[in-house]
């Protein structure tokens, strides 16, 4: 479990994170959603002990603050910035980071082999990381966070700039962490990723927590109604409704000559728009 209690961080006059309180459960994939500058990375850095909060506290599994080295052993971190040694091979990178977490001998070799296999990098394991594509580096970056089977996995924009194949690998790995009962914190500004992967989502903007709930509850609470659009010979008919299926059936009765039907369901984008008055990617 990962707990933030009244977490606040200032950089000069700018308040990057403002009184953030969260409790993230084991086996939960928790999304931190927000545009650039929302405070996601600062939150992750406080969760890893890289930044000390100005106020409030972070607790990892009841062990205390991650500023203590023994607490950090429970964390697996895949930073937004690719953190790999270009002149080491994929295998050497993983072996090095594994040793830092106390893995040795056969246990280390087996774990490295397993993760190379799981990330689809086994056939390039002996090549230097500098020869990898961006997506491959991103997968290796993720694998390095999982070597020691941490209780809490912190993923900061893990799919930034990756190809569809790598994205799929990463999604599968996230699902495996959830299945293994680990706490996963996943920051992204891709709402479709959050909707697909996350059990709960916290929406942040300008350091504030705007909303926190499951995706469906957020959509239901802040997304507004679905919009049904019927294209007829006389033009388009728009109907806002909470029950899209019933609305479509009713409209088709009224417009038997309709030649197109569109249903725009609310999503996290519309939730964010409703909460902040601007788009997530502004």
């Amino acid at each position, binding site marked *: 479990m990962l707990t933030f209690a009244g977490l606040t961080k200032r950089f000069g006059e700018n308040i990057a994170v403002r009184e953030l309180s969260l409790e993230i459960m084991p086996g939960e994939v928790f999304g931190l959603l927000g545009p650039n500058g929302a405070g996601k990375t600062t939150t992750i850095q406080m969760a890893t002990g*890289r930044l000390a909060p100005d106020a409030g506290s972070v607790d990892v599994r009841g062990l205390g603050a991650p500023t203590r*080295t023994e607490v*950090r052993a429970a964390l697996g*971190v895949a930073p937004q910035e690719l*953190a790999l*040694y270009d*002149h*080491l091979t994929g295998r050497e990178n993983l072996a090095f*980071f594994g040793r830092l*977490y106390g893995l040795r001998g056969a246990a280390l070799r087996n774990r490295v082999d397993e993760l190379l296999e799981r990330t689809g990098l086994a056939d390039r394991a002996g090549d230097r990381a500098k020869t990898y594509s961006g997506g491959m580096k991103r997968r290796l970056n993720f694998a390095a966070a999982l070597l020691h089977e941490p209780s809490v996995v912190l993923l900061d924009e893990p799919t930034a700039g990756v190809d569809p194949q790598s994205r799929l690998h990463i999604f599968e790995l996230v699902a495996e962490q959830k299945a293994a009962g680990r706490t996963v914190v996943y920051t992204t500004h891709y709402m479709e990723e959050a909707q697909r992967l996350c059990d709960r989502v916290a929406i942040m903007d300008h350091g504030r927590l705007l909303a926190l709930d499951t995706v469906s509850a957020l959509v239901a609470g802040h997304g507004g109604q679905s919009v049904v659009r019927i294209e007829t010979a006389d033009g388009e008919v728009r109907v806002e409704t909470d029950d899209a299926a019933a609305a479509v059936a009713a409209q088709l009765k009224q417009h038997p000559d309709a030649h197109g039907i569109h249903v725009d369901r609310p999503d996290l984008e519309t939730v964010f728009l409703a909460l902040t008055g601007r788009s997530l990617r502004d």
Partner: protein
Amino acid sequence: MGAIWTLALKDLRLLLRDKPGLFFALFFPILYAVFFGVVFSGGGGGDGAGIAVLVVDEDQTESSRSFVDGLLALDGMEARRADRETATARVRKGDATAYVVLPQGFGAASRRMLFGSRATLTIGVDPSRRAEAAMLHGLLTKQAFAPMRDPGALRAQVKAALVASAASGQDGLAMRPFLVALEQFLGNVVATTEANKTAGAEGSRAAETDGDAFGFQPLRIEQESVVRARRGPRNPFAITFPQGIVWGIMGCAAAFGISLVVERSQGTLARLLVSPLSQARILAGKGLACFLAVVSVSGVLLLVAVVGFSVRPDSWGLLALGIAANGIGFVGIMMLLSVVGKTEQSAGGIGWAVLMVMAMLGGGMIPLFAMPSWLRGVSSISPVKWAILSLEGALWRDFTLAEMLMPCAVMVAIGAVSFTAGTMIFRRTL
């Protein structure tokens, strides 16, 4: 300790794969040491201006004092007065290249240059310094000829020779007509010189030419070997390899200083900082890697020196002490270099600029003995001087343990101060 070793081995592996870094840490120093060693052993090494010479005047006559004053003013020689005991000790230590002794009777002999037995002086020099010894012979002979550049002084010499010849009644009969003619000629030259300043300069040149044309040596130089008294460098490579080793050590310091900046810019430092390692262990890993690289590079260069160029250290134990002290010193310097630049380019540029100045001042480019005395004084502020001294002390200066403590202690102190300062700045910028 396991994690620190892991960090250090990773950095050493990265250094081995960093071709430019490896070149400056290993191959450039070997090239440097071999190239200059060959140059010096080829006879060109002793022509550096300002060889340090101690002059012992045991005659204490007006002529000997005049000769010494002439030596002190000579270009190409840094001469100082000393007593014989001090001069011998300092040459044995390598503090001076050679000594020159003007024995009793030197002044009297030098006044009768054209008659009787020649003036004799003794030089003491390490036999391995053949080039410097030959240069010293030339400078002393030049100084002995100096009176002949003054027609008046030369005329007095001729007159003295004629008087002495007549008084002895047994010598110089064959020379007498020539000396009489020469005395008359010089009288004309002196008269012309006094009449016309310009003509005087020409007259002086004429006298010089005449003096050279005599085709005799006005001085007999006896050479004493000081090799039995101290074990100096057996060959020039014993001088150039310590310099090469220090270049290699500087290459290591630059490479690891830059690597810490690269770790920061590439994000790997952030990953290390979120691992269960304290900042102190991370920096200790970097320091250990640099230390091991320094020891390895020193070891490889020494191996090349011993196997390929017959360099034989006086003391392997003291050499190990010197290398360890240099490792500590330059680990600290590496830490300081790692915080001077924010990017790889700026850290590399600034770092090498600082190291080059250290090398220039400290004898990394030209040997300390070839430096002017004022620069030798300034060189003490450079860690390179102490690093070279700690290697030379064990290689050929025949330092005792007590004598080794000075350069080693300086290097350790430099390491401690700069590592502490570098670490403080590094932590502040995290």
